[in-house]
């Protein structure tokens, strides 16, 4: 993605011919990220998306698994097949037990140079962003960060990667024409999880890293896992109640917490609310916060700026409460109540409470 987008002229519809030296780059790759024996779900979300791209191009879809030798790596390959990969490039080495930039950059760069994929996708996680930036620089190719949509421009078979720009007020589509591979990262939960097909299989192509521990400058002294219990888990919550600047005052946010409690929901917020310190950063939903895909998302006092929208429009049902009937949130919500959130929220909380009580009696 451009750091200076505004100075660029759109490429338009000019005639494009791929450098013949790049024509040998074929296939779509997804980097399979894992930590402590568990694959990151973003890898499978990308595998689902990669499948669609590969089908459009008529090329195979491959997973890239790098890690310490052992049962885990093989298992990740099998999972990759279940989620849509046709083959996996496996690189096992004790040096790859923990993520470190140097060996992973070398390994992934070597694989790309050896097998030449046209598209390489990674999750926009702390690992994926660290690795993608280094690999793209080493390969001297283009990398588009935090995409919200991936497509193929069939006219020139190039990857059209769409992402928010200008602090999330507009969207832009970015292409990497005469460089390969075309690289992109996508944040967790932006794409939906594909269906798992356990009958699918594929072939594993093994490769070696060619580094030993003494070659690697950075050492992992310790790993301290997070205590997940004290952290809100918005990305996987089924119900989320969020508030925005329209809640007017921090004390009004209690109304959000009240509704969330009745529903057993997580509490979310927009960027201005988090910046004002009303709620923790862990609860920010949007381009610079968490992307969520709950079954029900209730947005109170939220206008629906793109910054926020890209983080929650994957929700199944969206209820929007806003006093402005022209607020953009009503353009993509399922249901809207035009009204003051401070009076609607308590009423909605009570209505849900009654509904739950009735449901219990019925059981």
């Amino acid at each position, binding site marked *: *993605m*451009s*750091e*200076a*987008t505004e100075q*660029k002229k*759109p*490429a338009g519809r000019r005639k494009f011919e791929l450098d013949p030296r790049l024509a040998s780059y074929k296939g779509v790759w997804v980097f399979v*990220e894992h*930590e402590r024996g568990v694959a990151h779900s973003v890898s499978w979300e990308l595998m689902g998306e990669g499948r669609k791209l590969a089908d459009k191009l008529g090329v195979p879809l491959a997973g890239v698994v790098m890690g310490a030798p052992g049962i885990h790596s093989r298992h990740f390959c099998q999972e990759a097949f279940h989620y849509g990969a046709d083959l996996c490039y496996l690189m096992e080495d004790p040096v790859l037990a923990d*993520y*470190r*930039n140097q060996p992973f950059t070398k390994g992934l760069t070597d694989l790309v140079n050896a097998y030449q994929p046209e598209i390489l996708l990674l999750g926009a996680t*702390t*690992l994926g962003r*660290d690795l*993608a*930036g*280094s690999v*793209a*620089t080493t390969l001297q190719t283009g*990398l588009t*960060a935090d995409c919200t949509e991936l497509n193929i421009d069939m006219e020139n078979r190039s990857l059209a990667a769409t992402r*928010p720009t*200008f*602090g*999330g*007020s507009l969207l*832009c589509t*970015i292409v*990497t*024409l*005469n460089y390969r591979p075309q690289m992109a990262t996508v944040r967790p939960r932006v794409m939906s999880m594909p269906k798992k097909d356990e009958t699918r299989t594929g072939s594993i192509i093994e490769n070696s890293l060619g580094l030993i521990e003494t070659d690697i*400058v*950075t*050492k992992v*002294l*310790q*790993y*301290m896992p*997070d205590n997940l219990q004290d952290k809100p888990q918005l990305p996987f919550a*089924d*119900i989320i109640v969020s508030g925005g600047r329209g809640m007017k005052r921090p004390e009004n946010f209690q109304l959000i917490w009240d509704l969330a409690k009745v529903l*057993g*929901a997580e509490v979310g917020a927009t960027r*201005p609310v988090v910046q004002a310190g009303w709620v923790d*950063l862990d609860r920010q939903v949007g*381009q610079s916060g968490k992307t969520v895909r709950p079954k*029900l998302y209730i947005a109170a006092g939220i206008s629906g700026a793109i910054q926020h929208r890209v983080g929650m429009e994957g929700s*199944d049902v969206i209820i929007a409460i806003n006093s402005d009937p022209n607020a953009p*949130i009503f*353009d993509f*919500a*399922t249901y809207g*109540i035009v*009204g003051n959130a401070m*009076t609607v929220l308590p*009423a909605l909380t*009570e209505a*849900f409470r009654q509904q739950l009580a009735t449901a219990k009696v019925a059981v």
Partner: protein
Amino acid sequence: MHIVVCIKQVPDSAQIRVHPVTNTIMRQGVPAIVNPYDLFSLEEALRLKDKFGGRVTVLCMGPPQAEAALRKAISFGADDAILVTDRAFAGSDTLATSFALASAIKKIQEDMPVDIVFAGKQTIDGDTAQVGPGIAKRMDLQLLTYVSKIVDLDLDKREITLHRRAEGGVQVLRTKLPCLITMLEGTNEMRFATMPNMFRAARYPLKQWDKDAAGIEDVSKIGLKGSPTIVSKVFAPQAKTVRAEIIDCESKHPKDLSVTLLTKMFTKFPNLAEEIGKGAG
């Protein structure tokens, strides 16, 4: 010890507005600020200088008016400031930007070797998080992104120990200098500018480097030419074909509106009722 901190001047994205009719960015009157993520890296660099001595040089690539960002950094306590500015940089994407900045840092090193380079985790306008890793790769520095804490710095052994945020936990890493660090947000708080530093910032003879001064010979690696990514389209998001169903009822009372909403919703999405019962139970 010599530390270089890369900063960027960005428009305050909280204040960017899109023209409702033309869908273009309304730039007029949007104030320019130092990228907020860069301040965590600058503060960490200043803390290391407080503890171990040495110099902090701030480096910025951008248009001439970006000198305001560098003066701000001087007012916080940075020693030197260099603005890399040239029309030839216009249109640079992250690959071209990291090339230009790495070239400038190599030039800085000719006067005084650099032990640590700091960069922001990402910017608030591009949000790519790619320039830091790009500089590290080009200069062959150890890359340490998302650092939450610097535990120890041993200048005799040239070793640094720090905490790095991983997805499910924190890695405690030890590596060798020189290295490139990007700090995680919220890990420290930027100090206030002191009066003497503010005076110094106002009078500081800022260095302006064009591409030649920054040691860039190969112009095919900067600007639009050096940028593999091309913006093919900028657009406002489409409204869904179906707008939200606005709940209405005769009384317009919030209570009745809420009940109407739930009735409609649970009729159309019966599974949701179950889901909510589960969550609450």
